[in-house]
């Protein structure tokens, strides 16, 4: 499977080509080049996936982990900084997710970005992002992951700031980069600790990987040595790395960059800030999961509770936002938190029906997959809407179902999916998560169910606000909204995936037929694991979701919304707080500008100019002053010289005496 290296190289070359030669290419040509390259790597990824999943399993029934390619990029003393490709079920799944969504976004952008200045640059950055994200997921070692992690950060920065003449976009891009960078500091320190104590950065924790030619690709990883050096070392390293993951995956309180990141072009939001980059944190935890579950079981509640709180917080904020992309952004935060929680509640790695604790891992990855599809669809749908009405605000919308029929249908499908209605993909994955939570601790399970209900509520609030509700007729008559086929085509593809996966997994889960399901491909230890729904959990969550949808219908569907207005009137402060995202941004603003800048940086700069530099200037001044004063000895008066000379001679004589 050596061709997998092309999956990384092609987008990189495309980035270089479009970045350097883009100036001389037409919009169409550069878009075509970018899309064509992506089409190729999408096909390559599917081939890889097909080849990987159809290959024979290992003797113990698990999928083999392959390293088709590995090189030492930078020797670091006893350690090596490798670059390579590691294929295991989750990385192969991520390849599919990334290339699929990215391909859709590339096609979609033809319509969405048409005529934008910097079209070539846009496609170049998309290629860069795709390359980095693919590099991240196929990383053979944690340092490679960090390298590409930084690269996706910077491509996200560049793409959020694509409209660089808008101050809001510039601020948002800066914020996204700095916040994630701050979190990455934790990641880096975690890597350093891990690398130092285990003597390797590799993901092959048990040292059983071999290259195709039978050589061992990595420096062996000595986990036991690290454990012997101190039981807290590996958990500390993992927790620090989790901070990095939390930053990338927008976990509270490092989530603040994600809603602002919506200033970027909408396809970018769909690709980076919904489907791929933001799940890097989840992916990282999943990648390190064997370590978590073996050595840091006691620290996993950190993941759970950060996840639970974030899910709740984001869901409640999402209920009050009026910018549709912001609603989707908070919904993303909330859903990623679901994935985190699912990983946190996974308490064992051995799969099988007698090992209930192992569902979480699979559920999380499953949700990652389904969420990527329907959330990308939602974002791209939102993009169509924004493209049609030229506004992000719900005020400009309402009643759009007449003008945008395809968008309407696909949006509704995705909303149903995220709400967890049976026969849509979100149902299967979310249900698994709640099952896993229930198995871990019923309290967590019920909280997550409630949050799932909130999800259904705010998603349908959004849906009704856009497609039903009070229509902004004046605006729509001025400028009739319409949709373009090149933009709706990806929506259709993504919703077909959503429905298809949903129907298949729902039927399989209810035991309609015995076939492969998601768990067959991906599970905590790579074994075949068939999903079966726990009927009580499934029915409970379905009923609750339907109730929430009905409630949202009742409140938001009509032309006038008396109930909603009354609710705002009843709790204006709560609404305001939720609308302002509970003032988390202001807190950060305060910390960075008022404390770090005003009370650390400025004093240091002042100190430097006045105290340290002042000291050296003082030395210079002192020398000058001294010279100035002693120069009067050189008065030019002969008699004074003679007197001094005489005194000097007398003193010398006295000394000789």
């Amino acid at each position: 499977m050596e061709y997998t290296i092309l999956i990384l190289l092609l987008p990189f070359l495309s980035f270089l080509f479009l970045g350097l030669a883009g100036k001389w290419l037409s919009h169409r040509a550069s878009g075509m080049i970018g899309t064509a390259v992506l089409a190729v790597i999408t096909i390559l990824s599917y081939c890889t996936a097909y080849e990987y999943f159809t290959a024979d399993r290992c003797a113990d029934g698990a999928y083999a982990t392959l390293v088709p390619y590995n090189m030492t990029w930078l020797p670091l003393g006893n350690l090596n900084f490798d670059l390579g490709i590691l294929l295991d079920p989750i990385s192969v799944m991520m390849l599919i997710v990334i290339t699929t969504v990215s391909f859709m976004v590339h096609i979609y952008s033809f319509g969405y970005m048409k005529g934008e200045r910097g079209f070539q640059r846009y496609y170049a950055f998309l290629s860069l992002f795709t390359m980095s994200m693919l590099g991240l997921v196929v990383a053979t070692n944690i340092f490679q992951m960090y390298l590409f992690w930084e690269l996706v950060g910077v491509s996200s920065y560049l793409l959020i700031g694509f409209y660089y003449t808008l101050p809001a976009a510039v601020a948002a891009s800066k914020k996204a980069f700095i916040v994630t960078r701050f979190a990455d500091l934790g990641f880096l320190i975690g890597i350093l600790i891990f690398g130092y104590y285990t003597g390797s950065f590799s993901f092959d924790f048990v040292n059983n990987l071999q290259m195709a030619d039978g050589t061992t690709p990595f420096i062996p990883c000595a986990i036991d040595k690290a454990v012997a050096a101190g039981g807290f070392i590996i958990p500390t390293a993992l927790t620090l790395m989790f901070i990095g993951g939390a930053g990338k995956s927008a976990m509270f309180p490092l989530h603040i960059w994600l809603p602002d990141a919506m200033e970027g072009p909408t396809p970018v939001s769909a690709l980076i800030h919904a489907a791929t980059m933001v799940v890097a944190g989840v992916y990282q935890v999943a990648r390190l999961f064997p370590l978590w579950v073996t050595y840091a079981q006691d620290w996993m509640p950190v993941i759970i509770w950060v996840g639970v709180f974030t899910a709740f917080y984001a869901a409640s904020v999402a209920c009050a936002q009026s910018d549709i992309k912001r609603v989707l952004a908070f919904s993303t935060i909330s859903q990623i938190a679901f994935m985190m929680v699912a990983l946190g509640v996974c308490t064992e790695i051995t799969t099988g029906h007698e090992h209930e604790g192992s569902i979480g891992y699979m559920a999380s990855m499953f949700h990652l997959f389904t969420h990527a599809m329907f959330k990308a669809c939602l974002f791209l749908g939102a993009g169509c809407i924004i493209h049609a009405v030229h506004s992000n605000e719900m005020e400009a919308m309402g009643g759009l179902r007449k003008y945008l029929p395809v968008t309407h249908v696909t949006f509704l499908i995705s909303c149903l999916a995220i709400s967890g209605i049976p026969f849509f993909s979100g149902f299967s994955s979310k249900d698994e998560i709640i099952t896993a939570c229930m198995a871990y601790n019923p309290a967590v399970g019920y909280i997550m169910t409630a949050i799932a209900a909130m999800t259904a509520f705010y998603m349908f609030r959004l849906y009704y606000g856009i497609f039903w509700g009070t229509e902004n007729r004046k605006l729509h008559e001025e400028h009739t909204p319409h949709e373009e086929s090149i933009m709706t085509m990806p929506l259709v593809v993504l919703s077909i995936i959503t429905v298809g996966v949903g129907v298949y997994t729902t039927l399989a889960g209810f035991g309609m037929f015995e076939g492969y399901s998601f768990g067959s491909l991906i599970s905590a230890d790579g074994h075949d694991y068939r999903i079966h729904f726990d009927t009580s959990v499934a029915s409970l969550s379905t009923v609750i979701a339907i109730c929430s949808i009905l409630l949202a219908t009742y409140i938001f569907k009509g032309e006038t919304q008396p109930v909603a207005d009354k609710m705002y009137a009843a709790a204006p402060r709560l609404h305001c707080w939720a609308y302002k995202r509970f003032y988390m941004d202001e807190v950060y603003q305060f910390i960075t500008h008022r404390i770090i800048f005003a009370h650390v940086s400025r004093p240091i700069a002042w100190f430097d100019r006045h105290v340290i530099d002042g000291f050296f200037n003082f030395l210079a001044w002192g020398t000058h002053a001294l010279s100035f004063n002693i120069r009067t000895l050189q008065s030019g008066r002969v008699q004074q010289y003679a007197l001094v000379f005489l005194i000097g001679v007398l003193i010398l004589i006295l000394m000789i005496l």
Partner: protein
Amino acid sequence: MNFLSLFVLIPLLMLFSLWLAKGQKGIRTVMVVGSSALLALAVALTVKFISDRAGGAAEEMLYTASFVWFEPLHISYSVGVDGISVVMLLLSGVIVFTGTFVSWDMCKEYFLWFTLLSMGVFGFFISIDLFMMFMFYEIALIPMYLLIGVWGSGHKEYSAMKLTLMLMGASAFLMLGIFGIFYGAGGQTMNVVDIANHTGGAQIIEFSKQCIWFPFTFVGFGVLGAMFPFHTWSPDGHASAPTAVSMLHAGVLMKLGGYGCFRVAIYLLPEAANELSWIFLILTATGVVYGALSACVQTDLKYLNAYSSVSHCGMVLFAILMLTTTASTGAILQMLSHGLMTALFFAVIGMIYHRAHTRDIRQLNGLMRIVPFLSVAFAIAGLANLGLPGLSGFVAEMTIFVGSFENADTFHRVFTIMATTSIVVAAVYILRMIGKILYGVNLNPEHAKLHDAHWEERFAVICLIVCIAGIGLAPGWLSDVISDSVAPVIDNVKSVGHLLSQSNPFK
């Protein structure tokens, strides 16, 4: 005559030809030919060095030659290179080459001093005699005064004076240190390798003497390496210097500091390095964070970059003091990387200043639309500065951090973690700067019609970017070359003692 001496002879020839050259065209021809020859020589040396090392040449210094120069004081003209000097020579070659293109419109006298400065720099890196090193160091320093004082901008006389006085003060320390080492080792040889290996009549320097001369030597070179708190010449000096001089100064001259600290202070005084490194480690780690935080609130682009240099160069000395092979390799990589990226940064800032006549962040907006080439170069320089993977900064910083982590005690851990925070702060100030000056909409009508870079400027900038990206994408060979040469020094240090000294109260 050893072929390494060409590094000194070519600038001498250039000086002579410049003297004879007539007209701007003649001057440019001389400069381009000369600096290309230097660059070619540096590249050839690198290739030859790598192939010779691969062919089994295992001496510490290759291509050594020695001619007695002043018998009574045992001063000889000794040259020789190891991997560290090779990469430093390569760096100097690149910077001098690009610097020539950046200062395209300057006059003959400027180029005379510029070439003299280059000669000092090249001479310093090929010397392995303490006195020759010191002499070339001084040769490199003096032209700086004139280059800044005459062709600078702003408070140029003040800055030039300050820079020269502080560096001269440092070289006074350095001279004491060098003579201390010379006499401490028995006063029989000034050859660095001999003193380090106790050959050629050199004795082991007593521990107590080492502890006296180590601070002198380290501070002497450290001032040039912008060691906190002796860095204040750097912001003023860089802000006032003409573009190419800033490049050469930050890109190469400051590297003399780090190189000297490693080659003289650490190499020749290993026991004292073990014993006293903690003091300087505190200073440099402070400097790393301090420089970065100061940079956050600067409003002048050059000041900002100068403080960022304080931070990055602090990282060099910090890594050297960690006294592990990996960290020291990282330090050399960082020197290389910082040299290139800060040269790029200063070059682009200079070009922007040349056009917009201001370096105030608050007065520049929306340059991306007006001068796209410069803006992209600026952004790349910024991203390299904040350690973006794929560019050189990342490689160097990661090597340093991994190397620093090899010291497992709390003291070193705490300071390592402190130093890592600088990469976050770097992101803050770089993005703040990029956001303010490149992005947004231009509000100043005077800036609306700025023209983008000329061909020679483009050429220089592209050369630097290619080097930065080259190191960033394929750092392995460099790292090998460097770590082979770093290892003997560090082994020397490790063999005489343990890093946790008795005098460190924080251990």
